[in-house]
């Protein structure tokens, strides 16, 4: 077994059995081991857990969350404060995407919408019916996500506004606009091509999985191998030193918020396609899941520490946890109590792991 330590690509020390607990605790794959142990422990009680149908269910829930959580990871590494606007970006992009590509708007439901007669009509949105409806919708959704990210980034980096406030206001504002535009109605009749993103397969692989994995793999690559990635860590670890070294810290901050906005838009695309609608309340209960997955993954809330691969494990642990709690037939408030406690424990564990790693002696 080749265990790795958090910051290290290789270990200089010889490996002994006595070190095992510490090594596991400090391992990059700690959350993965935790997930495996959790599944093995629960299997006798919930045999359904590993049923193919359930695995499919787990996966389909995991892919959109992975996209969202990865964007959050970028922000957490640089800022240390979560981007709270992500779920509202989802809602707004979902609505805006549906507005431009839906094939039919019921006059009874939508005639009171502020967009009625300009952008939407009975015969659909501006891209409705064209061969580019799906592509147009996706591009518009991604652009909205990027624009809101740009707005957040500029507010934080250039106007020096507190990141917590900027994104908390965004959390409220974008969701309100998402509700206002369609007057709280879900927008159905999305083009078939778009719906296929949610349900289609390429061979044995679902399109959602492909999209989320592609995003995660490129995110991992960008963070670990590129100039931008190295600068993201430097800015997160020590912004003062980064500035002295000529790193454009303001641009880095704007960029990570844009990544977060883009990832929120991708998550929104996956959810909207699966639900076959543009939904003004989309994501309203997801914020804790996104941040919780990151905390469980060990992404530091002090900034500077984290990897997309960790986020990947964190997302799966979180989804399996939620799934197993559902199977235990617990009422929803019990599920929330357990979820909350686990996130809290994970935050404590992060402190323990950090301390343990600091006790390490370098020779």
């Amino acid at each position, binding site marked *: 077994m080749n265990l790795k330590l958090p910051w290290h*690509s290789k270990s200089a020390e010889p490996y002994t059995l006595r070190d095992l607990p510490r090594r596991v605790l400090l391992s990059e794959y700690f959350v993965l081991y935790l997930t495996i142990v959790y599944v093995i422990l629960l299997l006798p009680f919930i045999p359904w857990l590993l049923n193919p149908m359930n695995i499919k269910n787990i996966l389909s829930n995991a892919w959109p969350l992975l996209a969202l959580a990865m964007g959050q990871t970028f922000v957490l590494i640089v800022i240390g404060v979560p981007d709270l606007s992500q779920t509202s970006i989802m809602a707004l992009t979902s609505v805006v995407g549906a507005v431009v590509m839906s094939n039919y708007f019921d006059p009874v439901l939508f005639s009171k919408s502020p967009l009625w007669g300009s952008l939407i009509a009975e015969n659909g949105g501006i891209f409705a019916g064209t061969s580019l409806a799906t592509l147009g919708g996706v591009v518009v959704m991604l652009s909205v996500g990027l624009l809101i990210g740009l707005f957040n980034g500029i507010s934080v980096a250039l106007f020096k506004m507190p990141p917590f406030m900027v994104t908390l206001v965004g959390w409220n504002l974008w969701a309100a606009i998402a509700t206002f535009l369609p007057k709280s109605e879900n927008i159905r009749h999305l083009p078939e091509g778009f719906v296929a993103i949610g349900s289609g397969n390429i061979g044995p692989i679902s399109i959602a999985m492909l999209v989320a994995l592609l995003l995660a793999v490129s995110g991992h690559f960008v963070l670990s191998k590129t100039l931008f990635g190295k600068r993201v860590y430097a800015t997160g670890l020590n912004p003062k030193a980064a500035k002295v070294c000529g790193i454009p810290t303001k641009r880095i901050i704007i960029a990570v918020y844009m990544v977060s906005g883009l990832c929120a838009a991708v998550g929104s695309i996956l959810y909207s396609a699966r639900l076959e609608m543009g939904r003004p309340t989309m994501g309203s209960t997801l914020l804790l899941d996104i941040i919780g997955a990151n905390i469980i993954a060990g992404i530091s809330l002090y900034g500077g520490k984290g990897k997309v691969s960790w986020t990947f494990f964190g997302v799966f642990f979180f989804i399996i946890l939620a799934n197993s709690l559902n199977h235990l037939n617990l009422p929803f408030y019990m599920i929330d109590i357990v979820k909350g406690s686990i996130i809290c424990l994970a935050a404590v564990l992060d402190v323990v792991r950090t301390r343990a790693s600091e006790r390490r002696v370098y020779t």
Partner: protein
Amino acid sequence: MGDKILEFVDITRSFFGVKALEKINLQLKEGEIFGLIGENGAGKSTLMNILGGILPQDEGCMLLDTQEYKPGGPSDASAAGIEFIHQELNLFMNLTVAENIYIHNFPTMQGTPIIRKREIIKRAKDLLESLGMEIQPTALLETLAPGERQMVEIAKALSMDARIYIFDEPTTSLTAKETTGLFNILKRLRNEGKTIIYISHILGDVEDLADSVAVLRDGKVMGSGPIQDFSIDKMISLMVGGSFKQIFPEKKSIPQKEKLLEIQELSQSGTVKDINFSLHKGEILGVFGLMGAGRTEMARMVFGVDPYSDGEVYIEGEKLPKSNPMASIEKGLAFVTEDRREEGLLMDVPIVDNLGMVALPDFCRNYTKIVNGKQLNEEAEHVSERLHLKATNLDVMPAKSLSGGNQQKVVIGKWLLKTPRVLIMDEPTRGIDVGAKYEVFNIINDLADKGAGILMISSEVEELIGVCDRIVVMSRGEIMDVFEKEKFTQEAIMRSAFRQGMIATATEGDEDEIK
């Protein structure tokens, strides 16, 4: 002058194996002003922190009225009648003057937690008036000038009615008039039988005010006794010492004619004023000054980390844009910051990533901007060898695992990967051992031999004399003098930094009273 009130017996204190104080023995009498002087880092603050209960001593003891005095914290010191007026203000900008003065002990309505506002305003007014300060007790602190804030801090300490007051550089932010007022207060306190420990870099003030004086150097008492036995010249020579303890590597090359860096009329209100100098090719230019002289601020403006209101910086005749570190680096500027931990290193990541912080774009593939880790590692190994960095596995060990000296080499190393033409170094030898210092000087010499210009800021005169070709002396944001190599003497440089000749005007007001 009364009986002995306080005695330090064999006080010793080390930080990380370095002795900051070694067997300090001093005696203070009741009702005297006791001047405590010494260079930056001589141990004055450490000694006062021990007295104020902020730090414990390693060895030795303090006797207060012949009883052993062992403070467990600042509150114990207060209870024993010792008040510390710090150089950095411990005030609340969002509260009024009166509230700041009584923050430790608000009078409240009986049996309730409600503060008797009128009472504290009245008390503060009386106190300020008795001290001759024209400050409104209801004014918010943030609306006051720096000197007035300092006076509030002093008033706050005096409201505690202590027996021993420690004043640490109280005049740095005061105007001449406020200084005169403060001196009158100090003399009045002495007449009331209070003991005052007065720490200052302005030796003329010490000479005028103090009854006794102690000179510290390198954590030892170099001399103490009645002020009559200490002329200013004697104080300076005791502070700087006569001999060179350190060895410096020989610089082989001499500065060339071409100007690399030229600074014209650089000003920023409150920090620096009309700074003019130039740095030549192959030259090591030292910048000396006492704490608060504006050296670091000046360096940060030149490099482009901080803004400045007036003036220009030229690199080889080209004007350097303001506040743009990226452009400065492109033009060949490098900046080794004063504080390694705060502004130099990424403590938790491997050394190689720290070394790559500046030059990383040079190790990326075109267009894709993928980092060529192998090339970076090789180059980092070269630099590490050149610096004699004591580290194995550059790509594994985090910066925090290194000793102070080796950390400093990493900070320097990250600029060497970029081959700088002008290297600005702010206290490059702070907190590193003698061996590492020697190696740092070697690196600096080597760079100068290759034609780079080095601007070296230091608080240690000896080291500047040992290493530099020229020394600029700054004080209160201005350049006082520029010394050529043949005119280097510790006394002359110290005199310049202490603004000898300026002191008479600052204290003119009380000449008569003293004599």
